[in-house]
Protein backbone atom coordinates (compact mmCIF):
# COMPACT_ATOMS: atom_id res chain seq x y z
CA UNK A 1 0.00 0.00 0.00
CA UNK A 2 1.06 3.57 -0.61
CA UNK A 3 1.53 4.90 2.88
CA UNK A 4 4.50 7.05 1.88
CA UNK A 5 2.59 8.33 -1.15
CA UNK A 6 -0.13 9.57 1.19
CA UNK A 7 2.34 11.30 3.47
CA UNK A 8 4.14 12.88 0.52
CA UNK A 9 0.91 14.02 -1.09
CA UNK A 10 -0.36 15.58 2.15
CA UNK A 11 2.86 17.59 2.14
CA UNK A 12 2.21 18.78 -1.41
CA UNK A 13 4.87 16.62 -3.03
CA UNK A 14 4.52 14.80 -6.35
CA UNK A 15 3.75 11.11 -6.24
CA UNK A 16 4.33 8.42 -8.85
CA UNK A 17 0.77 7.26 -8.37
CA UNK A 18 -2.16 9.13 -6.85
CA UNK A 19 -2.91 7.70 -3.41
CA UNK A 20 -6.45 6.76 -2.44
CA UNK A 21 -7.96 7.33 1.00
CA UNK A 22 -11.57 6.15 1.46
CA UNK A 23 -13.03 8.00 4.44
CA UNK A 24 -14.65 4.97 6.01
CA UNK A 25 -16.01 6.04 9.36
CA UNK A 26 -19.24 4.33 10.31
CA UNK A 27 -19.19 2.78 6.84
CA UNK A 28 -16.57 0.39 8.23
CA UNK A 29 -19.22 -0.75 10.72
CA UNK A 30 -21.65 -1.34 7.86
CA UNK A 31 -19.06 -3.44 6.03
CA UNK A 32 -18.81 -5.87 8.96
CA UNK A 33 -22.52 -5.86 9.74
CA UNK A 34 -22.38 -3.85 12.95
CA UNK A 35 -24.60 -0.93 13.91
CA UNK A 36 -22.65 2.30 14.27
CA UNK A 37 -23.52 2.82 17.93
CA UNK A 38 -22.19 -0.50 19.20
CA UNK A 39 -19.25 -0.40 16.78
CA UNK A 40 -17.96 2.94 18.05
CA UNK A 41 -18.03 1.72 21.67
CA UNK A 42 -16.21 -1.58 21.01
CA UNK A 43 -12.44 -1.41 20.30
CA UNK A 44 -12.36 -4.89 18.78
CA UNK A 45 -15.22 -4.06 16.41
CA UNK A 46 -13.40 -0.91 15.29
CA UNK A 47 -10.27 -2.95 14.61
CA UNK A 48 -12.21 -5.50 12.57
CA UNK A 49 -14.01 -2.77 10.65
CA UNK A 50 -10.95 -0.71 9.76
CA UNK A 51 -8.88 -3.74 8.73
CA UNK A 52 -11.73 -5.04 6.59
CA UNK A 53 -12.33 -1.66 4.93
CA UNK A 54 -8.63 -1.10 4.23
CA UNK A 55 -8.33 -4.46 2.52
CA UNK A 56 -11.73 -4.35 0.77
CA UNK A 57 -11.05 -0.93 -0.75
CA UNK A 58 -7.28 -1.33 -1.31
CA UNK A 59 -6.70 1.82 0.72
CA UNK A 60 -3.41 3.69 0.82
CA UNK A 61 -4.69 5.52 3.88
CA UNK A 62 -7.73 5.18 6.13
CA UNK A 63 -9.23 6.92 9.18
CA UNK A 64 -9.24 5.13 12.50
CA UNK A 65 -12.71 6.58 13.09
CA UNK A 66 -14.53 9.58 11.63
CA UNK A 67 -16.52 10.86 14.58
CA UNK A 68 -16.46 14.52 15.57
CA UNK A 69 -18.31 13.92 18.82
CA UNK A 70 -15.46 12.13 20.64
CA UNK A 71 -14.12 15.26 22.31
CA UNK A 72 -17.53 16.80 23.05
CA UNK A 73 -18.89 13.63 24.64
CA UNK A 74 -15.66 13.25 26.61
CA UNK A 75 -16.37 16.70 28.05
CA UNK A 76 -19.91 15.79 29.04
CA UNK A 77 -22.00 17.12 26.14
CA UNK A 78 -25.43 15.47 26.03
CA UNK A 79 -25.64 13.24 23.00
CA UNK A 80 -27.60 10.56 21.24
CA UNK A 81 -26.31 7.40 19.58
CA UNK A 82 -27.57 6.23 16.21
CA UNK A 83 -27.35 2.86 14.45
CA UNK A 84 -26.41 4.43 11.12
CA UNK A 85 -24.53 7.60 12.02
CA UNK A 86 -21.93 8.83 14.49
CA UNK A 87 -23.44 10.20 17.72
CA UNK A 88 -25.09 13.61 17.52
CA UNK A 89 -24.68 16.32 20.14
CA UNK A 90 -28.06 17.21 21.65
CA UNK A 91 -27.16 19.79 24.27
CA UNK A 92 -24.60 22.47 24.88
CA UNK A 93 -23.06 22.86 28.34
CA UNK A 94 -21.94 26.43 27.67
CA UNK A 95 -25.30 27.63 26.35
CA UNK A 96 -26.21 29.15 29.72
CA UNK A 97 -23.00 29.13 31.74
CA UNK A 98 -19.44 30.31 31.35
CA UNK A 99 -16.50 28.06 30.64
CA UNK A 100 -15.12 28.82 34.08
CA UNK A 101 -18.39 28.00 35.86
CA UNK A 102 -18.84 24.79 33.89
CA UNK A 103 -15.64 23.23 35.22
CA UNK A 104 -15.02 21.64 31.82
CA UNK A 105 -11.40 20.56 31.35
CA UNK A 106 -9.38 19.39 28.37
CA UNK A 107 -10.04 15.64 28.17
CA UNK A 108 -6.94 13.47 28.32
CA UNK A 109 -6.30 9.88 27.21
CA UNK A 110 -8.05 8.39 30.25
CA UNK A 111 -11.19 10.48 29.89
CA UNK A 112 -14.53 9.87 28.22
CA UNK A 113 -14.37 7.95 24.96
CA UNK A 114 -10.61 8.18 24.53
CA UNK A 115 -9.73 4.79 26.12
CA UNK A 116 -11.84 2.98 23.50
CA UNK A 117 -10.34 5.02 20.66
CA UNK A 118 -6.79 4.51 21.89
CA UNK A 119 -7.22 0.77 22.46
CA UNK A 120 -8.57 0.34 18.94
CA UNK A 121 -5.98 2.66 17.45
CA UNK A 122 -2.98 0.82 18.86
CA UNK A 123 -4.22 -2.49 17.47
CA UNK A 124 -4.99 -1.00 14.05
CA UNK A 125 -1.61 0.68 13.99
CA UNK A 126 0.18 -2.61 14.60
CA UNK A 127 -1.94 -4.45 12.05
CA UNK A 128 -1.62 -1.88 9.25
CA UNK A 129 2.01 -0.75 9.19
CA UNK A 130 1.91 -0.01 5.46
CA UNK A 131 -1.32 2.00 5.39
CA UNK A 132 -1.39 5.68 6.38
CA UNK A 133 -3.58 5.90 9.47
CA UNK A 134 -5.59 9.11 9.84
CA UNK A 135 -6.39 10.57 13.24
CA UNK A 136 -9.54 12.62 12.67
CA UNK A 137 -10.05 15.18 15.42
CA UNK A 138 -12.79 17.75 15.94
CA UNK A 139 -11.64 21.18 14.82
CA UNK A 140 -11.93 24.19 17.12
CA UNK A 141 -14.96 25.94 15.61
CA UNK A 142 -17.03 22.78 15.38
CA UNK A 143 -16.08 21.80 18.93
CA UNK A 144 -16.90 25.29 20.18
CA UNK A 145 -20.30 24.96 18.46
CA UNK A 146 -20.87 21.68 20.28
CA UNK A 147 -20.08 23.41 23.58
CA UNK A 148 -22.00 26.65 23.04
CA UNK A 149 -24.61 25.80 20.41
CA UNK A 150 -25.61 27.88 17.39
CA UNK A 151 -25.50 30.99 19.58
CA UNK A 152 -21.74 30.90 18.98
CA UNK A 153 -22.24 32.28 15.47
CA UNK A 154 -24.02 35.32 16.90
CA UNK A 155 -21.43 35.65 19.68
CA UNK A 156 -18.69 35.93 17.06
CA UNK A 157 -20.06 39.37 16.18
CA UNK A 158 -21.97 40.49 19.28
CA UNK A 159 -19.88 38.93 22.04
CA UNK A 160 -16.46 38.39 20.45
CA UNK A 161 -14.55 37.97 23.72
CA UNK A 162 -16.76 35.10 24.79
CA UNK A 163 -16.56 33.49 21.34
CA UNK A 164 -12.80 33.84 21.36
CA UNK A 165 -12.52 32.27 24.82
CA UNK A 166 -14.56 29.21 23.85
CA UNK A 167 -12.91 28.72 20.44
CA UNK A 168 -9.47 29.12 21.97
CA UNK A 169 -10.30 26.52 24.61
CA UNK A 170 -11.57 24.21 21.88
CA UNK A 171 -8.22 24.69 20.17
CA UNK A 172 -6.45 23.44 23.31
CA UNK A 173 -8.70 20.37 23.27
CA UNK A 174 -7.84 19.82 19.61
CA UNK A 175 -4.16 20.08 20.50
CA UNK A 176 -4.47 17.28 23.04
CA UNK A 177 -6.47 15.19 20.56
CA UNK A 178 -3.70 15.66 18.00
CA UNK A 179 -1.12 14.60 20.56
CA UNK A 180 -3.10 11.47 21.42
CA UNK A 181 -3.55 10.48 17.79
CA UNK A 182 0.06 11.25 16.87
CA UNK A 183 2.01 10.12 19.94
CA UNK A 184 -0.10 7.56 21.76
CA UNK A 185 -1.66 5.84 18.75
CA UNK A 186 0.95 6.60 16.11
CA UNK A 187 -1.32 7.97 13.39
CA UNK A 188 0.52 9.18 10.30
CA UNK A 189 -1.83 12.02 9.33
CA UNK A 190 -3.48 14.33 11.83
CA UNK A 191 -6.68 15.70 10.32
CA UNK A 192 -8.09 18.82 11.97
CA UNK A 193 -11.67 18.43 10.84
CA UNK A 194 -13.75 21.57 11.11
CA UNK A 195 -16.84 21.33 8.92
CA UNK A 196 -18.52 24.48 10.20
CA UNK A 197 -15.43 26.58 9.40
CA UNK A 198 -16.82 26.98 5.88
CA UNK A 199 -19.95 28.65 7.26
CA UNK A 200 -18.25 31.84 8.43
CA UNK A 201 -16.64 34.87 6.87
CA UNK A 202 -12.95 34.74 5.85
CA UNK A 203 -12.10 37.42 8.43
CA UNK A 204 -13.62 35.30 11.21
CA UNK A 205 -11.65 32.30 9.99
CA UNK A 206 -8.40 34.27 10.18
CA UNK A 207 -9.16 35.87 13.55
CA UNK A 208 -10.51 32.85 15.41
CA UNK A 209 -10.13 29.52 13.63
CA UNK A 210 -6.54 29.87 12.40
CA UNK A 211 -5.05 30.73 15.82
CA UNK A 212 -7.09 28.02 17.56
CA UNK A 213 -5.82 25.41 15.10
CA UNK A 214 -2.17 26.00 15.95
CA UNK A 215 -1.96 23.72 19.04
CA UNK A 216 -3.05 20.73 16.94
CA UNK A 217 -0.68 21.62 14.11
CA UNK A 218 2.16 21.97 16.58
CA UNK A 219 1.35 18.66 18.28
CA UNK A 220 1.46 16.87 14.93
CA UNK A 221 4.73 18.56 14.01
CA UNK A 222 6.29 17.76 17.41
CA UNK A 223 5.48 14.10 16.85
CA UNK A 224 6.99 14.17 13.37
CA UNK A 225 3.63 13.64 11.69
CA UNK A 226 1.91 15.51 8.87
CA UNK A 227 -1.32 17.43 9.32
CA UNK A 228 -4.27 18.30 7.13
CA UNK A 229 -7.21 20.66 7.59
CA UNK A 230 -10.52 19.05 6.60
CA UNK A 231 -13.33 21.45 5.73
CA UNK A 232 -16.83 20.74 4.44
CA UNK A 233 -19.51 22.68 2.60
CA UNK A 234 -18.85 25.41 0.09
CA UNK A 235 -15.47 26.54 1.42
CA UNK A 236 -14.63 28.57 -1.68
CA UNK A 237 -14.69 31.87 0.20
CA UNK A 238 -12.20 30.73 2.84
CA UNK A 239 -10.05 28.38 0.78
CA UNK A 240 -6.96 30.58 0.64
CA UNK A 241 -7.18 30.98 4.43
CA UNK A 242 -7.48 27.20 4.78
CA UNK A 243 -4.46 26.59 2.55
CA UNK A 244 -2.46 29.11 4.55
CA UNK A 245 -3.40 27.89 8.04
CA UNK A 246 -0.14 26.04 8.65
CA UNK A 247 -1.10 22.43 8.03
CA UNK A 248 0.80 20.43 5.40
CA UNK A 249 -2.36 20.06 3.35
CA UNK A 250 -6.13 20.29 3.34
CA UNK A 251 -9.18 18.35 2.22
CA UNK A 252 -12.44 19.62 0.78
CA UNK A 253 -15.86 18.30 -0.04
CA UNK A 254 -17.75 17.70 -3.25
CA UNK A 255 -19.12 21.21 -3.59
CA UNK A 256 -15.85 22.77 -4.68
CA UNK A 257 -14.42 22.92 -8.16
CA UNK A 258 -11.38 20.65 -7.94
CA UNK A 259 -9.45 22.58 -10.60
CA UNK A 260 -9.77 25.71 -8.46
CA UNK A 261 -8.79 23.76 -5.36
CA UNK A 262 -5.72 22.34 -7.13
CA UNK A 263 -4.66 25.84 -8.21
CA UNK A 264 -5.00 27.15 -4.65
CA UNK A 265 -3.03 24.21 -3.25
CA UNK A 266 -0.25 24.56 -5.80
CA UNK A 267 -0.09 28.31 -5.13
CA UNK A 268 0.41 27.69 -1.42
CA UNK A 269 2.62 24.63 -1.88
CA UNK A 270 0.42 22.30 0.15
CA UNK A 271 -1.36 19.02 -0.50
CA UNK A 272 -5.07 18.61 -1.18
CA UNK A 273 -7.60 15.78 -1.09
CA UNK A 274 -11.03 15.20 -2.54
CA UNK A 275 -13.65 15.19 -3.81
CA UNK A 276 -15.73 12.30 -5.14
CA UNK A 277 -19.41 13.09 -4.70
CA UNK A 278 -20.69 11.40 -1.58
CA UNK A 279 -24.35 11.55 -2.28
CA UNK A 280 -25.11 11.70 -5.99
CA UNK A 281 -22.31 9.24 -6.88
CA UNK A 282 -21.19 7.07 -3.95
CA UNK A 283 -24.47 6.82 -2.05
CA UNK A 284 -27.23 7.10 -4.61
CA UNK A 285 -25.40 6.21 -7.82
CA UNK A 286 -27.32 8.91 -9.71
CA UNK A 287 -23.96 9.89 -11.18
CA UNK A 288 -21.49 7.19 -12.14
CA UNK A 289 -18.93 6.81 -9.30
CA UNK A 290 -16.44 5.64 -11.93
CA UNK A 291 -16.85 8.71 -14.10
CA UNK A 292 -16.86 11.05 -11.11
CA UNK A 293 -13.60 9.54 -9.88
CA UNK A 294 -12.07 9.91 -13.33
CA UNK A 295 -13.10 13.57 -13.40
CA UNK A 296 -11.39 14.05 -10.02
CA UNK A 297 -8.24 12.28 -11.14
CA UNK A 298 -8.14 14.39 -14.30
CA UNK A 299 -8.42 17.65 -12.39
CA UNK A 300 -6.28 16.70 -9.42
CA UNK A 301 -3.09 15.73 -11.21
CA UNK A 302 -0.45 13.99 -9.14
CA UNK A 303 1.34 16.75 -7.31
CA UNK A 304 0.13 16.77 -3.74
CA UNK A 305 -3.20 15.17 -4.66
CA UNK A 306 -5.03 12.45 -2.75
CA UNK A 307 -8.15 10.90 -4.25
CA UNK A 308 -10.80 10.72 -1.56
CA UNK A 309 -14.55 11.06 -1.05
CA UNK A 310 -15.90 14.54 -0.43
CA UNK A 311 -16.41 13.74 3.25
CA UNK A 312 -17.04 10.87 5.64
CA UNK A 313 -18.80 8.11 3.70
CA UNK A 314 -22.37 7.49 4.84
CA UNK A 315 -23.05 4.25 6.72
CA UNK A 316 -24.69 2.24 3.96
CA UNK A 317 -22.82 3.30 0.83
CA UNK A 318 -23.10 0.35 -1.58
CA UNK A 319 -19.60 -1.21 -1.68
CA UNK A 320 -19.99 -1.84 -5.42
CA UNK A 321 -20.09 1.93 -5.91
CA UNK A 322 -16.71 2.20 -4.20
CA UNK A 323 -15.44 -0.65 -6.37
CA UNK A 324 -16.10 1.63 -9.33
CA UNK A 325 -13.61 4.12 -7.89
CA UNK A 326 -10.97 1.40 -7.86
CA UNK A 327 -11.81 0.63 -11.49
CA UNK A 328 -11.49 4.32 -12.34
CA UNK A 329 -8.03 4.50 -10.78
CA UNK A 330 -6.88 1.50 -12.76
CA UNK A 331 -8.30 2.92 -16.00
CA UNK A 332 -6.81 6.34 -15.31
CA UNK A 333 -3.34 4.93 -14.70
CA UNK A 334 -3.49 2.91 -17.90
CA UNK A 335 -4.96 5.49 -20.23
CA UNK A 336 -4.58 9.02 -18.93
CA UNK A 337 -1.69 11.30 -19.78
CA UNK A 338 0.62 11.80 -16.79
CA UNK A 339 0.85 15.10 -14.99
CA UNK A 340 3.83 17.24 -16.13
CA UNK A 341 6.02 16.50 -13.10
CA UNK A 342 6.07 12.90 -14.25
CA UNK A 343 7.61 14.06 -17.54
CA UNK A 344 10.32 15.91 -15.65
CA UNK A 345 11.02 12.83 -13.60
CA UNK A 346 11.32 10.73 -16.76
CA UNK A 347 13.61 13.28 -18.37
CA UNK A 348 15.86 13.22 -15.34
CA UNK A 349 15.99 9.45 -15.58
CA UNK A 350 16.99 9.62 -19.24
Amino acid at each position, binding site marked *: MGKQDVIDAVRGLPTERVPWVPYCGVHSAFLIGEPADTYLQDPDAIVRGVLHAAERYEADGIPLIFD*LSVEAISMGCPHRW*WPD*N*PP*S*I*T*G*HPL*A*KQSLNDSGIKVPGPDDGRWPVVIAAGKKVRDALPDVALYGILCGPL*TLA*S*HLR*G*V*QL*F*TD*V*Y*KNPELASEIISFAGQVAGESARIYAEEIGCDVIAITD*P*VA*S*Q*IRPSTFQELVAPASQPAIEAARNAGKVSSFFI*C*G*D*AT*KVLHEVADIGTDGFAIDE*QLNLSFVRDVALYHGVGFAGNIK*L*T*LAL*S*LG*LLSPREDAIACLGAGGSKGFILAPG*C*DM*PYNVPPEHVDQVLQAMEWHRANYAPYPHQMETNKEKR
Partner: protein
Amino acid sequence: MSDTIMIDVLTLDSLQCAACTYMMESIAALPKQIQDVICYREWSIKTQAGVDKFVEMKGRVLPTIAIQGDLIFESMIPQYEELIDAMAQRAPTEELGAVIRDLRDTGFDFDEIETNLAKARSD
Protein backbone atom coordinates in the same frame (compact mmCIF):
# COMPACT_ATOMS: atom_id res chain seq x y z
CA MET B 1 -51.16 29.30 5.16
CA SER B 2 -50.88 33.11 5.19
CA ASP B 3 -50.12 33.03 8.93
CA THR B 4 -47.13 30.71 8.47
CA ILE B 5 -43.61 31.20 7.14
CA MET B 6 -42.24 28.25 5.22
CA ILE B 7 -38.59 27.34 5.81
CA ASP B 8 -36.73 24.60 3.94
CA VAL B 9 -33.27 23.53 5.04
CA LEU B 10 -31.28 21.73 2.37
CA THR B 11 -28.66 19.49 3.99
CA LEU B 12 -26.35 16.58 3.50
CA ASP B 13 -27.75 15.13 6.72
CA SER B 14 -27.92 17.08 9.96
CA LEU B 15 -26.91 14.00 11.95
CA GLN B 16 -23.76 13.36 9.94
CA CYS B 17 -22.67 16.87 8.93
CA ALA B 18 -21.93 19.41 11.68
CA ALA B 19 -22.45 22.38 9.36
CA CYS B 20 -25.91 21.02 8.60
CA THR B 21 -26.49 20.36 12.31
CA TYR B 22 -26.03 24.01 13.20
CA MET B 23 -28.01 25.28 10.21
CA MET B 24 -30.92 23.17 11.49
CA GLU B 25 -30.31 24.22 15.07
CA SER B 26 -30.48 27.89 14.09
CA ILE B 27 -34.14 27.29 13.20
CA ALA B 28 -34.93 24.79 15.95
CA ALA B 29 -33.56 27.19 18.62
CA LEU B 30 -35.81 30.07 17.61
CA PRO B 31 -38.06 31.09 20.51
CA LYS B 32 -41.49 29.55 20.98
CA GLN B 33 -43.37 32.58 19.66
CA ILE B 34 -41.59 32.10 16.35
CA GLN B 35 -41.92 28.32 16.40
CA ASP B 36 -45.67 28.93 16.44
CA VAL B 37 -45.58 30.84 13.14
CA ILE B 38 -43.01 28.87 11.12
CA CYS B 39 -43.20 25.54 9.37
CA TYR B 40 -39.83 23.99 8.55
CA ARG B 41 -38.37 20.80 7.23
CA GLU B 42 -34.96 19.33 6.61
CA TRP B 43 -34.30 17.93 3.14
CA SER B 44 -31.32 15.57 3.21
CA ILE B 45 -29.70 15.05 -0.15
CA LYS B 46 -29.02 11.47 0.97
CA THR B 47 -32.62 10.75 -0.01
CA GLN B 48 -34.34 10.90 -3.39
CA ALA B 49 -36.89 13.37 -1.96
CA GLY B 50 -34.02 15.58 -0.86
CA VAL B 51 -32.39 15.45 -4.29
CA ASP B 52 -35.73 16.32 -5.90
CA LYS B 53 -36.22 19.27 -3.52
CA PHE B 54 -32.69 20.50 -4.16
CA VAL B 55 -33.37 20.50 -7.91
CA GLU B 56 -36.84 22.04 -7.50
CA MET B 57 -35.46 24.92 -5.42
CA LYS B 58 -32.45 25.35 -7.70
CA GLY B 59 -30.17 24.78 -4.73
CA ARG B 60 -26.52 25.55 -5.24
CA VAL B 61 -24.71 24.56 -2.07
CA LEU B 62 -25.26 22.57 1.11
CA PRO B 63 -26.36 23.48 3.67
CA THR B 64 -28.81 26.19 2.67
CA ILE B 65 -31.73 27.80 4.49
CA ALA B 66 -34.57 28.86 2.21
CA ILE B 67 -37.31 31.14 3.53
CA GLN B 68 -40.57 31.30 1.62
CA GLY B 69 -38.80 29.64 -1.30
CA ASP B 70 -35.89 32.10 -1.42
CA LEU B 71 -32.36 30.69 -0.93
CA ILE B 72 -31.15 33.05 1.81
CA PHE B 73 -28.35 31.51 3.87
CA GLU B 74 -26.09 29.48 1.59
CA SER B 75 -23.15 27.91 3.43
CA MET B 76 -23.41 30.65 6.06
CA ILE B 77 -24.81 29.89 9.51
CA PRO B 78 -26.92 32.96 10.33
CA GLN B 79 -26.82 35.14 13.38
CA TYR B 80 -30.09 35.32 15.31
CA GLU B 81 -30.90 38.84 14.14
CA GLU B 82 -30.14 37.98 10.52
CA LEU B 83 -32.68 35.18 10.70
CA ILE B 84 -35.31 37.40 12.29
CA ASP B 85 -34.83 40.10 9.66
CA ALA B 86 -34.94 37.62 6.78
CA MET B 87 -38.16 36.06 8.07
CA ALA B 88 -39.81 39.40 8.83
CA GLN B 89 -39.04 40.71 5.34
CA ARG B 90 -40.73 37.68 3.79
CA ALA B 91 -43.68 37.37 6.13
CA PRO B 92 -46.89 36.94 4.13
CA THR B 93 -48.68 39.66 6.11
CA GLU B 94 -47.52 42.93 7.65
CA GLU B 95 -48.96 41.85 11.00
CA LEU B 96 -46.88 38.68 11.05
CA GLY B 97 -43.78 40.62 10.05
CA ALA B 98 -44.35 42.97 12.98
CA VAL B 99 -44.77 40.06 15.40
CA ILE B 100 -41.46 38.60 14.27
CA ARG B 101 -39.62 41.93 14.45
CA ASP B 102 -40.80 42.37 18.03
CA LEU B 103 -38.78 39.25 18.91
CA ARG B 104 -35.52 40.63 17.56
CA ASP B 105 -34.01 40.99 21.04
CA THR B 106 -35.34 37.72 22.48
CA GLY B 107 -32.51 35.45 21.35
CA PHE B 108 -32.21 31.70 20.85
CA ASP B 109 -33.94 29.24 23.18
CA PHE B 110 -32.20 25.89 23.58
CA ASP B 111 -34.76 24.21 25.84
CA GLU B 112 -36.93 22.63 23.15
CA ILE B 113 -34.37 21.91 20.45
CA GLU B 114 -34.75 18.13 20.42
CA THR B 115 -38.55 18.33 20.22
CA ASN B 116 -38.39 20.92 17.48
CA LEU B 117 -35.83 18.96 15.46
CA ALA B 118 -37.92 15.80 15.74
CA LYS B 119 -40.86 17.66 14.20
CA ALA B 120 -38.70 18.92 11.34
CA ARG B 121 -37.57 15.37 10.54
CA SER B 122 -40.92 13.72 11.11
CA ASP B 123 -42.31 13.47 7.57
